[in-house]
């Protein structure tokens, strides 16, 4: 007689909570860096006004939504995809794969090479978002972790490594 059972989809509660916290802080750091760092500023300057992108995991998140408004100001718009058009989706194929990137087990380029994420939107803007992600990771992480998160740690001038980085941290915590 065939042995049969049904397995409902389980939940990774702690992993999801960790990802929500990381994406929330990362989103605020993007907003902060867009105001104080020239590199991030120039990447956003090349994007059209009223442009919104999200980073998240298939099929049900968590997500991070960041937008540039009509005045060119960059804002972290929270974790909800509802009520606003999203022009660029950068999605990992499962929350477990997003977790590997945010737990620094795998860098973004390696995840990309292993076909972990898909993009719905324009490729040049997706490349710009990936470059912004790399800069933010270098700002937020100590060097030994940043080395695992990006392909190559950039050699930045002292001011950018210290003063700008501190301002990004303070603004990310404060949400300015």
């Amino acid at each position, binding site marked *: 007689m*065939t*042995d*049969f059972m049904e397995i409902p*989809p*389980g*939940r990774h509660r702690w992993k999801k909570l960790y990802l929500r916290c990381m994406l929330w802080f990362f989103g605020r750091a993007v907003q902060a860096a867009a105001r104080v760092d020239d590199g991030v500023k120039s990447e956003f300057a090349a994007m059209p006004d009223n442009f919104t992108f999200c980073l998240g995991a298939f*099929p049900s998140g968590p997500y991070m939504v960041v937008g540039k408004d009509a005045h060119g100001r960059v804002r972290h718009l929270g974790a909800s995809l509802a009520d606003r058009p999203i022009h660029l989706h950068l999605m990992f*194929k499962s929350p477990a*794969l997003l977790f590997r990137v945010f737990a620094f087990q795998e860098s973004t380029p390696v995840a990309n090479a292993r076909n972990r994420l898909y993009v719905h939107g324009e490729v040049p803007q997706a490349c710009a978002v990936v470059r912004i992600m790399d800069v933010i990771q270098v700002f937020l992480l100590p060097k030994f972790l940043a080395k695992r998160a990006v392909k190559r740690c950039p050699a930045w001038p002292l001011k950018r490594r210290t003063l700008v980085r501190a301002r990004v941290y303070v603004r990310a915590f404060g949400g300015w």
Partner: protein
Amino acid sequence: MTLLNHFLCRTKTAFGTQALAHLPFDLSGMHAYKPFVITDQAARDAGLHLTLARACRDTHLALGLATLTDAEDFETLYHLFADKGYDSFIALGTGQVVQTAKALNLALCHGPEKLRSPAGPGQINRPLLPLVYIPTHPETGQDTAGETFFSGRHFVSANLMPDIAVITADTMLGTPGAAVLDSGLASLATCCEAFAFSGNPFARSYAHAGICLVMDTLLPLAQQSDHGDLLCQKAGKHRQLPLAKLAHAAAVSGYIQSNLPDLKSRQAVAHLTAVHPAPSAAPSSGLCMALALVHLLENSKDTCPWLGKLLLPLTDAAHYAGVPGPGQPDAAVRVIRKLLHALSETVPQGMPKTLGEAGLTPGQISEMSTLLTYTQHKEPPW
């Protein structure tokens, strides 16, 4: 002149770290949200269904898990699938599990009466439900080929090939040395023959990958098999990746078999078993194929234009570049003979390395030679 070559591989192969985590996304791309998992007792005992369930966490996939305990359960599985509204198959296992999943798929899409008579190429035209294949052992390539057997009947169609093959070290179970040897040699023979004789660039590129995978893993695995793993348990950490690579080679050889059904080394298995003085003591199918391959290569050394190139996947670029062109066919055959010799040393009771050692008389060998000859060699297109 442009040559027309056909090659159809409708299976997407996902291999490596976290390959299972891609499965929910890939299934949703085929509008499959409620997969029916068919597995065997060994995979269930090793907890592989939990590994699969973990990969589906935080998704919408609810799995129905049926464990095969009896070959007579086909009707039960049919009704379970139809009554509970499943929309796709995951075959978590090899051999019987995959054959059952393919037959069930056929019965559900074309009606149970389709299984009453064999179906050849062109008789199963409509696509079937999505089928995902997750091997737990290296096999001989039949699981990924577009064919299945049900109650002694043979069904052939490209639609029977799995849609996705997920090959990962996490799902490899302990495999006895004999099965490793059988799988590796069968894959090697299929890939080498396709590489040397098919003249089809697509088949040759798959064959190149398959040969490299076997040459990387078969001998080290055979040498380890004395410290064998327990069956019905996950393979030891050091053996999981090589076993997965061998399973990958077997999957590749299945794709090749589906496109080149007239491979001589495959035909030689039935012939050798039929003419062997003691059919029950005949070598395993993988070994038969490897012995037939060596014989085939020896027969075609002077006529086959691709034979020398076989040295490249069998060894490496440095070795290939170091052997002058006219000596390459001999060198390629020598590498395969050397591999067989090294493998026979890992088997406690020894292993035949030629058709003569396998128990065939000189008369039977010359009869095999007639079978194992390509009368026309396809010229390379450039």
